[in-house]
């Protein structure tokens, strides 16, 4: 984002954000930092999101889907909250990696996390074995789903139903996107209510302190009126693939990568030999063949394309920045202009550009008050870092790579001493007591790093996975199945649910999938309020018949 910033300007931007957050906290506009005298106490993620250590044993869970994302969840979970009793995956290479982990990065592997206790974790090599285990093992309290998108609904609904049958609910944390179409999302929500299970979806930005702080700064109004947000996630997958980088022998006779592309991994004998002749079984779960299973992100029938995989997270963040509002309409252009036959061919677009119209603060009174959010995700250039740039008439806030936030003021004509990018700002109050950004040379002195509050014990910035799973486990421990989804007089659920429960996550699915529809049909699509209501059967026109139907 903001590609022409120098290192120095970045430093100024980050310091501006920290100073502003601190100032807002002192003035009572933010809850995240607790000021007591001169000392600034920094909140832990747990305290911020209102959960505590769980009482009793960790929640016993099964992980189904042990691929790239499953590996991240295993590496990032806190075994004091959530303990995996079993892992299910039909790909032998995934099963091996989920235990052994990777030498660097987030995927530590079960062996590292659990030590010798990892030997007790059960390996389930088929979906049937998974269902069987849920039926037999009454200790299991939760299921974590990191399967290909087309399988989310089936796995979630089967698990919740088994929980109801056996008289002890099974709670579900599924990876995003929530489901392949909105009908399935609504089915999942209904099933959760019928079975008395918690249904949570892994949009981890809901648990990122960085985003929480950014949202609070925006809510305090220091950016002024926001009319535009630019969000993007650009990657470059055009470099030639080198087979020597793969340890195992590649299978001949199936398309192998032509470009280096994380979504088009090579197919090795480990998986191919085990699965290529089991097409009937794969079909049952929505995959035409083993290629589609391994590269499910590239097919409309099994995945949701760039909008679902990357865009949904960022649009989610944008709607939070704008005050948890639903978009009004979307239009866009999506093309598959780069990849093709023999060259990492795919079903989905490789360049997508979507334009959303969101309601502004005064939209109820003035229908012209619209915020434009543009989103782009491309596959042939990675120059800009991914992130979101929020543009208000008094300032700009940039969130980059889920790990840094920068804040820059708009300079008032006649007052500016330095160009905005070099201007240091802090917060002062207007006569009405509203906070405003003010530049000045008196802001000196070190600032307590707000972004530092999301730094975990290992010194890295938490993207929210750990907290998302901790809070899920915390909610499971508090959950009273008898009370279920009862609402109080104000229409709020009586029991604590996770920050991204089914009804929240369905919005992200609608936003992402409707954009796909608008691009494919070359039209501007207006969002209808009924789509967002889980109780009503209405679904967007993007909904097509799913390959994996749920009873």
């Amino acid at each position, binding site marked *: 984002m903001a590609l022409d910033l120098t290192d120095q300007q970045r430093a100024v931007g980050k310091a501006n954000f920290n100073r502003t957050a601190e100032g807002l906290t002192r003035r009572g506009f933010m809850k995240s930092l607790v000021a007591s005298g001169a000392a600034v106490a920094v909140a832990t993620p747990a305290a911020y999101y209102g959960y505590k250590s769980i009482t009793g044993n960790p929640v016993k869970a099964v992980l189904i889907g042990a691929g790239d994302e499953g590996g991240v969840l295993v*590496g*990032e*979970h*806190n*075994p*004091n909250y959530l303990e995996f009793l079993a892992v299910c995956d039909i790909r032998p290479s995934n099963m091996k990696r989920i235990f052994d982990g990777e030498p660097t990065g987030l995927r*530590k592997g079960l062996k*590292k*996390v*659990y*030590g*010798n*206790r990892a030997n007790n974790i059960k390996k389930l090599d088929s979906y049937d074995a998974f269902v069987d285990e849920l039926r037999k093992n009454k200790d299991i309290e939760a299921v974590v789903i990191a399967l290909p998108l087309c399988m989310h609904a089936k796995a979630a609904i089967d698990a919740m139903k088994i929980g109801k049958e056996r008289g002890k609910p099974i709670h579900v944390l599924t990876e995003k996107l929530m489901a392949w179409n909105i009908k399935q999302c609504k089915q999942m929500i209904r099933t959760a209510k019928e079975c008395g299970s918690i249904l949570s979806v892994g949009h981890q930005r809901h648990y990122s302190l960085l985003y929480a702080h950014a949202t609070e700064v925006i809510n305090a109004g220091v950016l002024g009126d926001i009319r535009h947000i630019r969000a993007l996630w650009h990657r470059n997958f055009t470099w030639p693939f080198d087979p020597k980088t793969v*340890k195992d022998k590649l299978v001949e006779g199936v398309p192998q990568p032509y470009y280096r592309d994380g979504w088009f991994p090579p197919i090795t004998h480990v998986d191919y030999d085990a699965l290529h002749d089991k097409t009937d079984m794969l079909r049952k779960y929505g995959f035409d063949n083993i290629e589609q299973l391994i590269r499910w992100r590239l097919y409309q029938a099994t995945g949701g394309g760039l909008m679902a995989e990357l865009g949904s997270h960022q649009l989610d963040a944008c709607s939070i920045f704008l005050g948890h509002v639903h978009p009004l309409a979307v239009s866009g252009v999506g093309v598959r202009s780069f990849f093709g036959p023999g060259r990492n061919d795919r079903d989905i677009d490789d360049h997508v550009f979507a334009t959303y119209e969101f309601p502004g603060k005064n939209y109820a009174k003035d229908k012209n008050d619209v915020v434009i959010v543009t989103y782009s995700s491309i596959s042939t250039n990675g120059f800009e870092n991914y992130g979101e740039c929020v543009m208000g008439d008094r300032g700009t806030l940039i969130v980059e790579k889920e790990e840094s936030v920068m804040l820059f003021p708009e300079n008032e004509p006649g007052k500016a001493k330095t160009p905005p990018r070099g201007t240091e700002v802090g917060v002062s109050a207007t006569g009405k007591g509203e906070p405003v950004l003010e530049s000045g040379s008196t802001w000196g002195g070190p600032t307590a790093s707000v972004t530092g509050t999301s730094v*975990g*014990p*290992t010194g890295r910035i*938490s993207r929210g996975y*750990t907290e998302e799973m901790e809070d899920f486990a915390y909610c499971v421990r508090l959950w009273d199945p008898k009370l279920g989804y009862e609402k109080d007089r104000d229409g709020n659920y009586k029991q604590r649910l996770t920050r991204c429960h089914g009804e929240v996550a369905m919005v992200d699915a609608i936003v992402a999938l409707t954009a796909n529809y608008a691009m494919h049909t070359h039209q501007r699509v207006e969002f209808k309020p009924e789509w967002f209501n889980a109780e009503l059967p209405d679904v967007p026109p993007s909904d097509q018949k799913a390959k994996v139907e749920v009873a």
Partner: protein
Amino acid sequence: MNKLTAFFLLLLRLAIGWHFAAEGYHKLKGYWEGPTETVVGKSKPFSSAGYFREGTGPLAKYIRKEIGDPDEEALALLTPKAAESPNLPLHARTPPLLAQEWGDYVRRFGDYYGFNEEQRKKAEEALVKVEDSVVRWLTSKEVTDKNYKATTQEGRLPTPVRVDEYKQKLQELSEPKYSHLLSIGPDAEATRLHNVKAEVVRLRVGLLNDLDEYTQALRKELEAIATPEQKKAAEGKGHPPQPQPPAEANEKQKWIDLATMYGLTALGMCLIVGLFTRLACLLAAGFLLMTYLCMPPFPWLPAPPNNEGYYLFVNKNVIEMLALLALATTASGRWLGLDALLHWMLFGSRRRSAASET
């Protein structure tokens, strides 16, 4: 005996038993789990190595001789052989212990990957190359070797200067200044020694870390010699060999650790259920005496790290030990415990049968 006295003595036994069992079980659990690494942090199985390494008392000194004194070992690794003749090649002056460790490592590495003659020759050449550079690093009066990054602040000083300072601090530590003790008082002397001790550890760790750069360089050289086929073939064989200190010391260390973990748990359980109570009391007291002698609160010794409170000659270990000895004089296990059952089986029944005979 007053009933209340007996009651509190029983409570005392249970409390001490619980303390031992909990400590032992905690260590055992870590041992069974093995090393783990989660988002919350890393944990390693219990080892008493650090305890004895940093122990200041007479017993720690003795045990260090058995399991290897880290300072002696560090000095052995950092002291190059004297230059007997000016023509002697650099690598011939490699510290003997280091040469032995590395030589052993190169041999194990070759065995693991199944090196052929040519590869073994290459490995020897790599060893000589790294030995040359390490001797240069150990002897040069200026910082010449820029190939390896210096990891500590002292890294900017020539190595011989750093080793000399390390030796000097060690010397300071081994000779408590009794004159200081008398003139400026035990507190000030204890603080000074505490600081010297910390300094010694810092210098040692810094030097060994820098030395490790060379060991890692050797590892990289060796890995470059192994062919991809050999690496693939070796995949199933478990972890590739690591450079490590002689195995013998590790064995003793392992034995001490196991004895500590199981011993603590067993003694604790015995005290709780009242089985072989007197013996358990004595053994547990013996264990505490040992910990006392490893880190005694003598004013002329540096205080151990993480020490809460202030102790002079008597610390909590001594008190717990004395409590155990006092318990050993009572028949506490027969008041409440399996010893009563045991006693009844061994003696009770005989007495009864004697009674029935008359």
